[in-house]
Protein backbone atom coordinates (compact mmCIF):
# COMPACT_ATOMS: atom_id res chain seq x y z
CA UNK A 1 0.00 0.00 0.00
CA UNK A 2 2.70 2.40 1.05
CA UNK A 3 4.85 1.46 -1.92
CA UNK A 4 1.89 1.99 -4.23
CA UNK A 5 1.20 5.48 -2.93
CA UNK A 6 4.86 6.34 -3.01
CA UNK A 7 5.15 5.25 -6.61
CA UNK A 8 1.99 7.08 -7.55
CA UNK A 9 3.16 10.33 -5.96
CA UNK A 10 6.65 9.92 -7.35
CA UNK A 11 5.39 9.36 -10.88
CA UNK A 12 2.93 12.25 -10.68
CA UNK A 13 5.50 14.62 -9.24
CA UNK A 14 8.12 13.71 -11.82
CA UNK A 15 5.58 13.95 -14.62
CA UNK A 16 4.36 17.35 -13.48
CA UNK A 17 7.96 18.43 -12.91
CA UNK A 18 8.65 17.61 -16.53
CA UNK A 19 5.53 19.42 -17.63
CA UNK A 20 6.76 22.53 -15.84
CA UNK A 21 9.57 22.86 -18.34
CA UNK A 22 7.79 21.41 -21.34
CA UNK A 23 4.72 23.63 -21.27
CA UNK A 24 4.60 26.54 -23.66
CA UNK A 25 2.26 28.58 -21.54
CA UNK A 26 3.92 30.02 -18.42
CA UNK A 27 0.67 29.85 -16.45
CA UNK A 28 0.37 26.14 -17.14
CA UNK A 29 3.98 25.71 -16.05
CA UNK A 30 3.28 27.34 -12.72
CA UNK A 31 0.18 25.21 -12.21
CA UNK A 32 2.18 22.07 -12.84
CA UNK A 33 4.74 23.33 -10.37
CA UNK A 34 1.93 23.63 -7.84
CA UNK A 35 1.05 20.02 -8.53
CA UNK A 36 4.67 18.97 -8.04
CA UNK A 37 4.82 20.80 -4.73
CA UNK A 38 1.58 19.27 -3.52
CA UNK A 39 2.93 15.82 -4.41
CA UNK A 40 6.11 16.53 -2.49
CA UNK A 41 3.97 17.63 0.45
CA UNK A 42 2.12 14.33 0.25
CA UNK A 43 5.48 12.54 0.29
CA UNK A 44 6.29 14.42 3.48
CA UNK A 45 3.06 13.12 4.96
CA UNK A 46 4.15 9.60 4.08
CA UNK A 47 7.44 10.25 5.87
CA UNK A 48 5.31 11.10 8.94
CA UNK A 49 6.23 14.76 8.76
CA UNK A 50 2.75 16.32 8.45
CA UNK A 51 3.89 19.67 9.80
CA UNK A 52 6.50 20.05 7.07
CA UNK A 53 3.86 18.99 4.56
CA UNK A 54 1.43 21.65 5.75
CA UNK A 55 4.17 24.28 5.68
CA UNK A 56 5.09 23.17 2.18
CA UNK A 57 1.54 23.65 0.97
CA UNK A 58 0.95 26.95 2.81
CA UNK A 59 4.22 28.60 1.85
CA UNK A 60 5.00 27.22 -1.58
CA UNK A 61 1.71 26.26 -3.15
CA UNK A 62 -0.41 28.78 -1.29
CA UNK A 63 1.78 31.86 -1.23
CA UNK A 64 4.82 31.74 -3.50
CA UNK A 65 3.12 30.08 -6.44
CA UNK A 66 0.17 32.43 -6.12
CA UNK A 67 2.59 35.34 -6.39
CA UNK A 68 4.16 33.68 -9.42
CA UNK A 69 0.75 33.44 -11.04
CA UNK A 70 0.01 36.97 -10.00
CA UNK A 71 3.11 38.34 -11.67
CA UNK A 72 2.56 36.25 -14.79
CA UNK A 73 -0.96 37.60 -15.10
CA UNK A 74 0.26 41.15 -14.54
CA UNK A 75 2.83 40.74 -17.28
CA UNK A 76 0.28 38.94 -19.45
CA UNK A 77 2.96 36.79 -21.03
CA UNK A 78 1.77 34.99 -24.09
CA UNK A 79 2.94 31.59 -25.18
CA UNK A 80 6.56 31.45 -26.20
CA UNK A 81 6.51 31.33 -29.94
CA UNK A 82 9.85 29.89 -30.81
CA UNK A 83 9.51 27.81 -33.91
CA UNK A 84 12.73 25.87 -34.31
CA UNK A 85 14.85 24.70 -31.45
CA UNK A 86 17.22 27.40 -30.37
CA UNK A 87 20.89 26.85 -29.69
CA UNK A 88 20.25 27.08 -25.96
CA UNK A 89 17.57 24.44 -26.01
CA UNK A 90 19.87 22.01 -27.80
CA UNK A 91 22.67 22.75 -25.34
CA UNK A 92 20.23 22.31 -22.50
CA UNK A 93 19.03 18.95 -23.75
CA UNK A 94 22.60 17.72 -24.19
CA UNK A 95 23.60 18.88 -20.70
CA UNK A 96 20.47 17.36 -19.20
CA UNK A 97 21.14 14.05 -20.93
CA UNK A 98 24.73 13.99 -19.66
CA UNK A 99 23.54 14.82 -16.15
CA UNK A 100 20.93 12.10 -16.31
CA UNK A 101 23.54 9.54 -17.34
CA UNK A 102 25.91 10.68 -14.58
CA UNK A 103 23.13 10.53 -12.01
CA UNK A 104 22.10 7.07 -13.19
CA UNK A 105 25.69 5.85 -12.96
CA UNK A 106 26.02 7.40 -9.52
CA UNK A 107 22.84 5.75 -8.30
CA UNK A 108 23.97 2.40 -9.68
CA UNK A 109 27.40 2.71 -8.16
CA UNK A 110 26.03 3.72 -4.79
CA UNK A 111 23.29 1.54 -3.38
CA UNK A 112 20.66 3.68 -1.75
CA UNK A 113 21.28 3.63 1.98
CA UNK A 114 18.03 1.95 2.91
CA UNK A 115 18.71 2.30 6.60
CA UNK A 116 21.61 4.59 7.27
CA UNK A 117 20.36 4.94 10.80
CA UNK A 118 20.42 8.63 11.50
CA UNK A 119 16.86 9.30 10.45
CA UNK A 120 15.66 6.83 13.04
CA UNK A 121 17.58 8.39 15.93
CA UNK A 122 14.61 10.52 16.93
CA UNK A 123 11.12 9.11 16.85
CA UNK A 124 8.54 11.68 15.82
CA UNK A 125 11.16 13.53 13.80
CA UNK A 126 8.63 15.41 11.73
CA UNK A 127 6.12 16.26 14.45
CA UNK A 128 5.37 19.85 15.36
CA UNK A 129 7.06 19.43 18.74
CA UNK A 130 10.25 17.97 17.28
CA UNK A 131 10.50 20.59 14.54
CA UNK A 132 9.80 23.40 16.98
CA UNK A 133 12.22 22.12 19.55
CA UNK A 134 15.12 21.71 17.16
CA UNK A 135 14.30 25.01 15.49
CA UNK A 136 14.58 26.89 18.76
CA UNK A 137 17.54 25.05 20.24
CA UNK A 138 19.98 23.49 17.86
CA UNK A 139 19.01 25.56 14.85
CA UNK A 140 18.18 28.80 16.63
CA UNK A 141 21.06 30.66 15.04
CA UNK A 142 20.32 29.61 11.44
CA UNK A 143 16.69 30.45 12.12
CA UNK A 144 17.61 33.97 13.19
CA UNK A 145 20.04 34.44 10.32
CA UNK A 146 17.22 33.50 7.99
CA UNK A 147 15.21 36.39 9.40
CA UNK A 148 17.99 38.77 8.41
CA UNK A 149 18.07 37.13 5.01
CA UNK A 150 14.42 38.03 4.66
CA UNK A 151 15.12 41.55 5.90
CA UNK A 152 17.71 41.93 3.15
CA UNK A 153 15.08 40.73 0.71
CA UNK A 154 12.55 43.27 1.95
CA UNK A 155 15.02 46.14 1.70
CA UNK A 156 15.85 44.93 -1.79
CA UNK A 157 12.21 44.84 -2.81
CA UNK A 158 11.73 48.39 -1.53
CA UNK A 159 14.74 49.60 -3.50
CA UNK A 160 13.92 47.83 -6.74
CA UNK A 161 10.26 48.81 -6.72
CA UNK A 162 10.98 52.46 -5.98
CA UNK A 163 9.31 54.78 -8.43
CA UNK A 164 11.74 56.05 -10.97
CA UNK A 165 12.53 59.73 -10.39
Amino acid at each position, binding site marked *: MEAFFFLLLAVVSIFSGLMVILQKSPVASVLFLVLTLVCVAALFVMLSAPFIAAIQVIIYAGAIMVLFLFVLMLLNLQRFTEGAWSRFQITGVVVAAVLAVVTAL*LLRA*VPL*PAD*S*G*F*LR*ETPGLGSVEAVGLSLF*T*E*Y*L*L*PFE*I*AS*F*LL*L*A*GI*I*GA*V*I*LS*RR*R*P
Partner: protein
Amino acid sequence: MDLSRFNLITIATPLVLGAGVLLVMLVDLLSGRANRRPAQLAALAVVLAAAAVCLATWNTGGVSFFGQVSGDGFASFFNLIFLAVAFLVILAGPAYLERNAIHFGEYYSLVLVSVMGMAFMAAGTNLLVIFLGLETMSLALYVLAGFNPARQSSNEASLKYLLLGSFATGFLVFGIALVYGQIGSTDLARFSAYLAGAGDPFAGYMGAGVALLLIGLTFKMAVVPFHFWSPDVYDGAPTVVSAFMSAAPKAAAFAAALRIFYAPAESLGLPWERILWILAALTMTVGNLSALNQASIKRMLAYSSVAHAGYLLLGILAGNELGAAGILFYLASYVFMNVGAFTVAWMVNRRGEGRYDLGDFAQLGFRRPLLAAMMSVFMLGLIGIPPLAGFFGKLYVFTAAVQAGYVWLVVIAVLNSAVSVFYYLRVMVIMYMRENEALKDVDRIPATFAAVAACALMVILLGLIPGSVLDVARAAVASMP
Protein backbone atom coordinates in the same frame (compact mmCIF):
# COMPACT_ATOMS: atom_id res chain seq x y z
CA MET B 1 17.21 25.50 29.66
CA ASP B 2 20.96 25.61 29.46
CA LEU B 3 21.63 29.14 28.28
CA SER B 4 25.38 28.64 28.23
CA ARG B 5 24.85 26.89 24.93
CA PHE B 6 23.98 30.28 23.49
CA ASN B 7 27.24 32.15 23.95
CA LEU B 8 26.58 35.56 22.43
CA ILE B 9 30.29 36.42 22.46
CA THR B 10 30.77 34.07 19.53
CA ILE B 11 28.47 36.12 17.35
CA ALA B 12 29.16 39.53 18.90
CA THR B 13 30.39 41.14 15.67
CA PRO B 14 27.54 40.04 13.39
CA LEU B 15 25.14 40.84 16.20
CA VAL B 16 26.35 44.45 16.29
CA LEU B 17 26.04 44.57 12.52
CA GLY B 18 22.52 43.18 12.62
CA ALA B 19 21.45 45.74 15.18
CA GLY B 20 23.27 48.32 13.07
CA VAL B 21 21.18 47.48 10.01
CA LEU B 22 18.02 48.28 11.95
CA LEU B 23 19.59 51.40 13.45
CA VAL B 24 20.68 52.71 10.08
CA MET B 25 17.23 52.12 8.61
CA LEU B 26 15.66 53.97 11.51
CA VAL B 27 18.09 56.87 11.29
CA ASP B 28 17.50 57.10 7.57
CA LEU B 29 13.77 57.12 8.11
CA LEU B 30 13.93 59.86 10.73
CA SER B 31 16.39 62.11 8.92
CA GLY B 32 14.06 63.36 6.25
CA ARG B 33 13.87 63.00 2.52
CA ALA B 34 16.88 64.82 1.17
CA ASN B 35 19.47 64.23 3.84
CA ARG B 36 21.40 60.95 3.69
CA ARG B 37 24.32 62.15 5.79
CA PRO B 38 22.97 60.84 9.14
CA ALA B 39 22.50 57.38 7.68
CA GLN B 40 26.07 57.38 6.43
CA LEU B 41 27.44 58.53 9.77
CA ALA B 42 25.35 55.94 11.59
CA ALA B 43 26.64 53.23 9.27
CA LEU B 44 30.24 54.33 9.84
CA ALA B 45 29.63 54.31 13.58
CA VAL B 46 28.15 50.83 13.37
CA VAL B 47 31.15 49.54 11.43
CA LEU B 48 33.55 51.10 13.94
CA ALA B 49 31.58 49.67 16.84
CA ALA B 50 31.58 46.26 15.21
CA ALA B 51 35.33 46.52 14.65
CA ALA B 52 35.83 47.47 18.28
CA VAL B 53 33.70 44.53 19.38
CA CYS B 54 35.60 42.30 17.01
CA LEU B 55 38.94 43.33 18.49
CA ALA B 56 37.63 43.08 22.04
CA THR B 57 36.33 39.55 21.47
CA TRP B 58 39.29 38.42 19.39
CA ASN B 59 39.56 34.65 19.63
CA THR B 60 37.50 34.44 22.81
CA GLY B 61 34.34 32.84 21.48
CA GLY B 62 34.85 29.19 20.91
CA VAL B 63 32.20 26.94 19.45
CA SER B 64 28.68 27.74 20.51
CA PHE B 65 25.01 27.58 19.51
CA PHE B 66 25.10 23.78 19.38
CA GLY B 67 28.20 23.78 17.22
CA GLN B 68 26.75 26.17 14.68
CA VAL B 69 29.36 28.92 14.97
CA SER B 70 32.84 29.40 16.27
CA GLY B 71 33.95 32.83 17.44
CA ASP B 72 37.60 32.02 16.97
CA GLY B 73 40.51 34.12 15.74
CA PHE B 74 39.84 32.97 12.19
CA ALA B 75 36.38 34.54 12.26
CA SER B 76 37.76 37.67 13.93
CA PHE B 77 40.48 38.05 11.31
CA PHE B 78 37.99 37.83 8.47
CA ASN B 79 35.51 40.06 10.23
CA LEU B 80 38.15 42.75 10.38
CA ILE B 81 38.76 42.40 6.64
CA PHE B 82 35.03 42.66 5.86
CA LEU B 83 34.57 45.61 8.19
CA ALA B 84 37.52 47.42 6.65
CA VAL B 85 35.99 47.02 3.20
CA ALA B 86 32.60 48.14 4.45
CA PHE B 87 34.13 51.17 6.13
CA LEU B 88 35.92 52.19 2.97
CA VAL B 89 32.95 51.85 0.64
CA ILE B 90 30.67 53.64 3.07
CA LEU B 91 33.20 56.43 3.46
CA ALA B 92 33.87 56.74 -0.26
CA GLY B 93 30.38 55.96 -1.52
CA PRO B 94 28.26 59.10 -1.10
CA ALA B 95 30.16 61.14 -3.68
CA TYR B 96 29.58 58.48 -6.31
CA LEU B 97 25.96 57.97 -5.33
CA GLU B 98 25.31 61.71 -5.41
CA ARG B 99 26.91 61.98 -8.81
CA ASN B 100 24.51 59.37 -10.17
CA ALA B 101 21.51 60.62 -8.21
CA ILE B 102 21.07 57.27 -6.48
CA HIS B 103 21.95 58.28 -2.95
CA PHE B 104 19.48 56.24 -0.92
CA GLY B 105 19.83 55.23 2.70
CA GLU B 106 19.31 51.59 1.77
CA TYR B 107 22.83 51.54 0.36
CA TYR B 108 24.19 51.57 3.88
CA SER B 109 21.81 49.02 5.34
CA LEU B 110 22.43 46.67 2.41
CA VAL B 111 26.20 46.92 2.80
CA LEU B 112 25.86 46.21 6.50
CA VAL B 113 23.49 43.27 6.10
CA SER B 114 25.77 41.85 3.44
CA VAL B 115 28.78 42.13 5.76
CA MET B 116 26.75 40.43 8.45
CA GLY B 117 26.18 37.52 6.09
CA MET B 118 29.90 37.36 5.39
CA ALA B 119 30.64 37.32 9.10
CA PHE B 120 28.47 34.23 9.45
CA MET B 121 30.21 32.62 6.48
CA ALA B 122 33.54 33.10 8.23
CA ALA B 123 32.27 32.00 11.64
CA GLY B 124 29.98 29.14 10.60
CA THR B 125 30.99 25.65 11.64
CA ASN B 126 27.84 24.21 10.19
CA LEU B 127 27.05 24.06 6.50
CA LEU B 128 23.63 25.55 7.17
CA VAL B 129 25.06 28.67 8.78
CA ILE B 130 27.56 29.05 5.98
CA PHE B 131 24.79 28.67 3.42
CA LEU B 132 22.52 31.19 5.13
CA GLY B 133 25.39 33.63 5.53
CA LEU B 134 26.20 33.26 1.86
CA GLU B 135 22.61 33.87 0.88
CA THR B 136 22.27 36.92 3.11
CA MET B 137 25.43 38.32 1.59
CA SER B 138 24.38 37.51 -1.96
CA LEU B 139 20.84 38.80 -1.70
CA ALA B 140 22.13 42.20 -0.58
CA LEU B 141 24.68 42.14 -3.39
CA TYR B 142 22.08 41.33 -6.04
CA VAL B 143 20.19 44.43 -5.02
CA LEU B 144 23.30 46.57 -4.72
CA ALA B 145 24.33 45.55 -8.24
CA GLY B 146 21.05 46.94 -9.50
CA PHE B 147 21.24 50.02 -7.35
CA ASN B 148 21.11 52.34 -10.33
CA PRO B 149 17.73 51.53 -11.88
CA ALA B 150 18.03 54.30 -14.44
CA ARG B 151 20.92 52.52 -16.15
CA GLN B 152 20.16 49.44 -18.13
CA SER B 153 23.56 47.87 -17.53
CA SER B 154 22.98 48.06 -13.80
CA ASN B 155 19.68 46.24 -14.14
CA GLU B 156 21.32 43.72 -16.38
CA ALA B 157 24.13 43.17 -13.88
CA SER B 158 21.64 42.67 -11.10
CA LEU B 159 19.52 40.20 -13.03
CA LYS B 160 22.51 38.29 -14.36
CA TYR B 161 24.03 38.04 -10.93
CA LEU B 162 20.71 36.99 -9.42
CA LEU B 163 20.01 34.26 -11.95
CA LEU B 164 23.50 32.80 -12.02
CA GLY B 165 23.95 33.28 -8.29
CA SER B 166 20.72 31.47 -7.49
CA PHE B 167 21.78 28.68 -9.79
CA ALA B 168 25.08 28.39 -7.95
CA THR B 169 23.22 28.45 -4.65
CA GLY B 170 21.18 25.55 -5.95
CA PHE B 171 24.38 23.58 -6.43
CA LEU B 172 25.52 24.48 -2.95
CA VAL B 173 22.25 23.41 -1.34
CA PHE B 174 22.15 20.19 -3.29
CA GLY B 175 25.73 19.51 -2.22
CA ILE B 176 24.79 20.11 1.41
CA ALA B 177 21.83 17.77 1.02
CA LEU B 178 24.02 15.01 -0.37
CA VAL B 179 26.59 15.46 2.38
CA TYR B 180 23.76 15.26 4.89
CA GLY B 181 22.48 12.17 3.15
CA GLN B 182 25.83 10.50 3.64
CA ILE B 183 26.76 11.50 7.18
CA GLY B 184 23.45 12.55 8.70
CA SER B 185 24.65 15.96 9.77
CA THR B 186 25.59 19.35 8.41
CA ASP B 187 28.05 19.91 11.21
CA LEU B 188 31.55 20.58 9.91
CA ALA B 189 33.13 18.76 12.84
CA ARG B 190 31.22 15.62 11.85
CA PHE B 191 32.11 16.32 8.22
CA SER B 192 35.85 16.44 8.79
CA ALA B 193 35.72 13.54 11.24
CA TYR B 194 33.97 11.51 8.57
CA LEU B 195 36.50 12.43 5.90
CA ALA B 196 39.39 11.60 8.21
CA GLY B 197 37.88 8.37 9.44
CA ALA B 198 36.36 6.75 6.40
CA GLY B 199 38.39 4.39 4.25
CA ASP B 200 37.30 5.96 1.01
CA PRO B 201 36.24 9.46 2.04
CA PHE B 202 34.39 10.11 -1.17
CA ALA B 203 32.38 6.95 -1.29
CA GLY B 204 28.64 7.17 -1.59
CA TYR B 205 27.13 10.59 -2.00
CA MET B 206 30.13 12.33 -0.51
CA GLY B 207 31.95 12.67 -3.81
CA ALA B 208 29.02 14.31 -5.58
CA GLY B 209 28.20 16.34 -2.46
CA VAL B 210 31.68 17.80 -2.12
CA ALA B 211 31.84 18.50 -5.85
CA LEU B 212 28.61 20.45 -5.68
CA LEU B 213 29.76 22.35 -2.59
CA LEU B 214 32.89 23.24 -4.48
CA ILE B 215 30.90 24.53 -7.46
CA GLY B 216 28.73 26.69 -5.20
CA LEU B 217 31.72 28.26 -3.49
CA THR B 218 33.93 28.68 -6.53
CA PHE B 219 31.12 30.55 -8.21
CA LYS B 220 31.27 33.19 -5.51
CA MET B 221 35.06 33.29 -5.81
CA ALA B 222 34.67 33.75 -9.60
CA VAL B 223 36.87 30.78 -10.41
CA VAL B 224 37.04 29.66 -14.05
CA PRO B 225 34.77 28.15 -15.45
CA PHE B 226 32.27 29.78 -13.09
CA HIS B 227 33.57 33.29 -13.65
CA PHE B 228 31.51 34.43 -16.60
CA TRP B 229 29.27 36.59 -14.49
CA SER B 230 32.01 38.60 -12.85
CA PRO B 231 33.18 40.94 -15.66
CA ASP B 232 29.61 41.75 -16.67
CA VAL B 233 28.42 42.26 -13.12
CA TYR B 234 31.41 44.30 -11.99
CA ASP B 235 31.14 46.34 -15.15
CA GLY B 236 27.41 46.96 -14.98
CA ALA B 237 27.06 47.52 -11.26
CA PRO B 238 27.59 50.98 -9.78
CA THR B 239 31.34 51.25 -9.32
CA VAL B 240 31.28 51.71 -5.54
CA VAL B 241 29.38 48.46 -5.44
CA SER B 242 31.90 46.82 -7.77
CA ALA B 243 34.64 47.85 -5.37
CA PHE B 244 32.75 46.20 -2.55
CA MET B 245 31.78 43.12 -4.58
CA SER B 246 35.19 42.37 -5.93
CA ALA B 247 36.77 42.47 -2.48
CA ALA B 248 34.62 41.34 0.41
CA PRO B 249 32.52 38.47 -1.05
CA LYS B 250 35.61 36.87 -2.49
CA ALA B 251 37.23 36.96 0.93
CA ALA B 252 34.06 35.53 2.45
CA ALA B 253 33.93 32.71 -0.09
CA PHE B 254 37.53 31.80 0.70
CA ALA B 255 36.78 31.96 4.40
CA ALA B 256 33.94 29.49 3.93
CA ALA B 257 36.09 27.27 1.72
CA LEU B 258 38.81 27.20 4.36
CA ARG B 259 36.26 26.38 7.04
CA ILE B 260 34.97 23.46 5.03
CA PHE B 261 38.08 22.14 3.34
CA TYR B 262 41.03 23.20 5.44
CA ALA B 263 40.78 20.69 8.25
CA PRO B 264 40.39 17.59 6.11
CA ALA B 265 42.86 18.91 3.55
CA GLU B 266 45.27 16.02 3.92
CA SER B 267 42.45 13.60 3.28
CA LEU B 268 41.32 15.38 0.14
CA GLY B 269 41.79 12.49 -2.20
CA LEU B 270 43.67 12.44 -5.44
CA PRO B 271 40.81 13.33 -7.81
CA TRP B 272 40.04 16.44 -5.79
CA GLU B 273 43.62 17.51 -5.83
CA ARG B 274 43.62 17.23 -9.60
CA ILE B 275 40.38 19.12 -9.97
CA LEU B 276 41.60 21.97 -7.79
CA TRP B 277 44.90 21.94 -9.64
CA ILE B 278 43.18 22.32 -12.98
CA LEU B 279 40.79 24.95 -11.64
CA ALA B 280 43.64 27.01 -10.23
CA ALA B 281 45.72 26.82 -13.40
CA LEU B 282 42.74 27.64 -15.60
CA THR B 283 41.60 30.52 -13.41
CA MET B 284 44.97 32.23 -13.36
CA THR B 285 45.55 31.82 -17.05
CA VAL B 286 42.12 32.71 -18.33
CA GLY B 287 41.85 35.65 -15.93
CA ASN B 288 45.17 37.14 -16.92
CA LEU B 289 44.86 36.54 -20.64
CA SER B 290 41.39 38.08 -20.71
CA ALA B 291 42.53 41.08 -18.73
CA LEU B 292 45.23 41.84 -21.27
CA ASN B 293 42.98 43.28 -23.89
CA GLN B 294 40.34 45.20 -21.94
CA ALA B 295 39.71 48.80 -22.78
CA SER B 296 37.52 49.37 -19.75
CA ILE B 297 39.31 49.64 -16.43
CA LYS B 298 36.37 48.00 -14.69
CA ARG B 299 36.48 44.93 -16.88
CA MET B 300 40.24 44.78 -16.56
CA LEU B 301 39.99 44.82 -12.79
CA ALA B 302 37.24 42.21 -12.95
CA TYR B 303 39.42 39.81 -14.90
CA SER B 304 42.33 40.62 -12.65
CA SER B 305 40.21 39.61 -9.68
CA VAL B 306 39.46 36.32 -11.45
CA ALA B 307 43.19 35.76 -11.79
CA HIS B 308 43.73 36.50 -8.13
CA ALA B 309 41.15 33.89 -7.20
CA GLY B 310 43.38 31.45 -9.06
CA TYR B 311 46.43 32.42 -7.02
CA LEU B 312 44.41 32.11 -3.85
CA LEU B 313 43.30 28.60 -4.79
CA LEU B 314 46.95 27.57 -4.46
CA GLY B 315 46.68 28.19 -0.76
CA ILE B 316 43.64 25.91 -0.46
CA LEU B 317 45.32 23.26 -2.57
CA ALA B 318 48.49 23.40 -0.47
CA GLY B 319 46.39 22.50 2.52
CA ASN B 320 49.10 23.36 5.02
CA GLU B 321 49.15 26.01 7.71
CA LEU B 322 51.22 28.42 5.67
CA GLY B 323 48.82 28.06 2.79
CA ALA B 324 45.80 28.94 4.92
CA ALA B 325 47.59 31.76 6.73
CA GLY B 326 48.89 32.93 3.38
CA ILE B 327 45.32 33.17 2.06
CA LEU B 328 44.38 35.29 5.05
CA PHE B 329 47.30 37.61 4.47
CA TYR B 330 46.73 37.67 0.73
CA LEU B 331 43.08 38.61 1.15
CA ALA B 332 43.89 41.25 3.76
CA SER B 333 46.12 43.01 1.26
CA TYR B 334 44.07 42.20 -1.84
CA VAL B 335 40.88 43.86 -0.61
CA PHE B 336 42.66 47.18 -0.08
CA MET B 337 44.26 47.12 -3.50
CA ASN B 338 40.99 46.29 -5.21
CA VAL B 339 38.80 48.74 -3.32
CA GLY B 340 41.43 51.42 -3.89
CA ALA B 341 41.76 50.70 -7.61
CA PHE B 342 37.99 50.65 -8.21
CA THR B 343 37.53 53.84 -6.24
CA VAL B 344 40.21 55.66 -8.21
CA ALA B 345 38.59 54.33 -11.37
CA TRP B 346 35.31 56.09 -10.68
CA MET B 347 37.02 59.19 -9.34
CA VAL B 348 38.85 59.76 -12.61
CA ASN B 349 35.97 58.66 -14.84
CA ARG B 350 35.19 61.69 -16.95
CA ARG B 351 33.09 60.26 -19.72
CA GLY B 352 30.01 59.29 -17.77
CA GLU B 353 28.96 56.01 -16.28
CA GLY B 354 28.67 54.18 -19.55
CA ARG B 355 32.38 54.37 -20.38
CA TYR B 356 35.23 53.45 -18.11
CA ASP B 357 38.02 53.95 -20.57
CA LEU B 358 41.64 53.49 -19.65
CA GLY B 359 42.21 56.78 -21.47
CA ASP B 360 40.63 58.51 -18.48
CA PHE B 361 43.89 58.03 -16.67
CA ALA B 362 45.82 60.09 -19.22
CA GLN B 363 48.12 62.58 -17.58
CA LEU B 364 46.74 61.83 -14.15
CA GLY B 365 50.33 61.69 -12.96
CA PHE B 366 50.76 65.41 -13.61
CA ARG B 367 47.34 66.72 -12.71
CA ARG B 368 46.79 64.75 -9.53
CA PRO B 369 50.21 63.34 -8.63
CA LEU B 370 49.11 61.97 -5.28
CA LEU B 371 46.13 60.11 -6.69
CA ALA B 372 48.26 58.72 -9.50
CA ALA B 373 50.91 57.63 -7.02
CA MET B 374 48.31 55.78 -5.00
CA MET B 375 46.90 54.12 -8.11
CA SER B 376 50.45 53.06 -8.91
CA VAL B 377 50.72 51.53 -5.46
CA PHE B 378 47.59 49.49 -6.12
CA MET B 379 48.78 48.38 -9.55
CA LEU B 380 52.25 47.45 -8.31
CA GLY B 381 50.67 45.72 -5.35
CA LEU B 382 48.41 43.69 -7.63
CA ILE B 383 51.43 42.67 -9.69
CA GLY B 384 53.20 41.69 -6.50
CA ILE B 385 56.21 43.97 -6.55
CA PRO B 386 58.19 43.94 -3.30
CA PRO B 387 58.00 45.55 -0.77
CA LEU B 388 54.25 46.02 -1.22
CA ALA B 389 51.74 43.79 0.52
CA GLY B 390 50.74 42.01 -2.69
CA PHE B 391 54.22 40.58 -2.99
CA PHE B 392 54.16 38.93 0.39
CA GLY B 393 50.69 37.52 -0.12
CA LYS B 394 51.84 35.79 -3.29
CA LEU B 395 55.11 34.78 -1.66
CA TYR B 396 53.39 33.01 1.21
CA VAL B 397 50.81 31.25 -0.91
CA PHE B 398 53.34 30.16 -3.53
CA THR B 399 55.81 28.97 -0.87
CA ALA B 400 53.06 26.95 0.75
CA ALA B 401 52.23 25.37 -2.61
CA VAL B 402 55.88 24.51 -3.23
CA GLN B 403 56.10 22.98 0.23
CA ALA B 404 53.12 20.85 -0.60
CA GLY B 405 54.79 19.75 -3.81
CA TYR B 406 52.93 21.71 -6.45
CA VAL B 407 56.04 23.05 -8.16
CA TRP B 408 54.60 23.11 -11.67
CA LEU B 409 51.52 24.93 -10.58
CA VAL B 410 53.67 27.59 -8.93
CA VAL B 411 55.65 27.90 -12.14
CA ILE B 412 52.40 28.55 -13.97
CA ALA B 413 51.41 31.08 -11.30
CA VAL B 414 54.71 32.95 -11.60
CA LEU B 415 54.46 33.01 -15.38
CA ASN B 416 50.95 34.36 -15.01
CA SER B 417 52.14 37.07 -12.67
CA ALA B 418 54.62 38.03 -15.35
CA VAL B 419 51.80 38.30 -17.86
CA SER B 420 49.80 40.43 -15.49
CA VAL B 421 52.63 42.97 -15.33
CA PHE B 422 51.65 44.03 -18.81
CA TYR B 423 48.13 45.20 -18.12
CA TYR B 424 48.77 46.60 -14.67
CA LEU B 425 51.73 48.62 -15.90
CA ARG B 426 49.72 49.86 -18.85
CA VAL B 427 47.60 51.88 -16.45
CA MET B 428 50.72 53.50 -15.07
CA VAL B 429 52.11 54.15 -18.53
CA ILE B 430 48.89 55.93 -19.45
CA MET B 431 48.92 57.94 -16.23
CA TYR B 432 52.44 59.20 -16.68
CA MET B 433 53.11 59.15 -20.38
CA ARG B 434 50.02 59.61 -22.49
CA GLU B 435 49.13 63.04 -23.77
CA ASN B 436 46.17 64.84 -22.30
CA GLU B 437 43.02 64.46 -24.32
CA ALA B 438 41.56 67.66 -22.97
CA LEU B 439 39.33 65.90 -20.52
CA LYS B 440 37.68 67.77 -17.72
CA ASP B 441 39.37 67.79 -14.40
CA VAL B 442 39.00 65.15 -11.71
CA ASP B 443 36.78 66.26 -8.84
CA ARG B 444 38.35 66.73 -5.46
CA ILE B 445 36.38 64.70 -2.95
CA PRO B 446 38.04 64.72 0.47
CA ALA B 447 36.24 61.73 1.99
CA THR B 448 36.81 59.52 -1.03
CA PHE B 449 40.38 60.67 -1.26
CA ALA B 450 40.85 59.73 2.38
CA ALA B 451 39.45 56.26 1.69
CA VAL B 452 41.84 55.76 -1.21
CA ALA B 453 44.73 57.04 0.88
CA ALA B 454 43.80 54.60 3.63
CA CYS B 455 43.86 51.76 1.10
CA ALA B 456 47.28 52.81 -0.19
CA LEU B 457 48.62 53.15 3.33
CA MET B 458 47.40 49.69 4.23
CA VAL B 459 48.99 48.19 1.12
CA ILE B 460 52.32 49.78 2.08
CA LEU B 461 51.97 49.07 5.77
CA LEU B 462 51.14 45.39 5.32
CA GLY B 463 54.22 45.20 3.11
CA LEU B 464 56.38 46.69 5.86
CA ILE B 465 55.28 44.34 8.63
CA PRO B 466 54.30 41.17 6.78
CA GLY B 467 55.84 38.89 9.38
CA SER B 468 53.78 40.03 12.31
CA VAL B 469 50.56 40.06 10.29
CA LEU B 470 51.33 36.55 9.09
CA ASP B 471 51.84 35.50 12.71
CA VAL B 472 48.37 36.82 13.52
CA ALA B 473 47.01 34.94 10.52
CA ARG B 474 48.78 31.76 11.62
CA ALA B 475 47.33 32.09 15.08
CA ALA B 476 43.91 32.68 13.51
CA VAL B 477 44.18 29.54 11.42
CA ALA B 478 45.42 27.56 14.39
CA SER B 479 42.44 28.71 16.46
CA MET B 480 39.97 26.99 14.12
CA PRO B 481 38.30 24.10 15.91
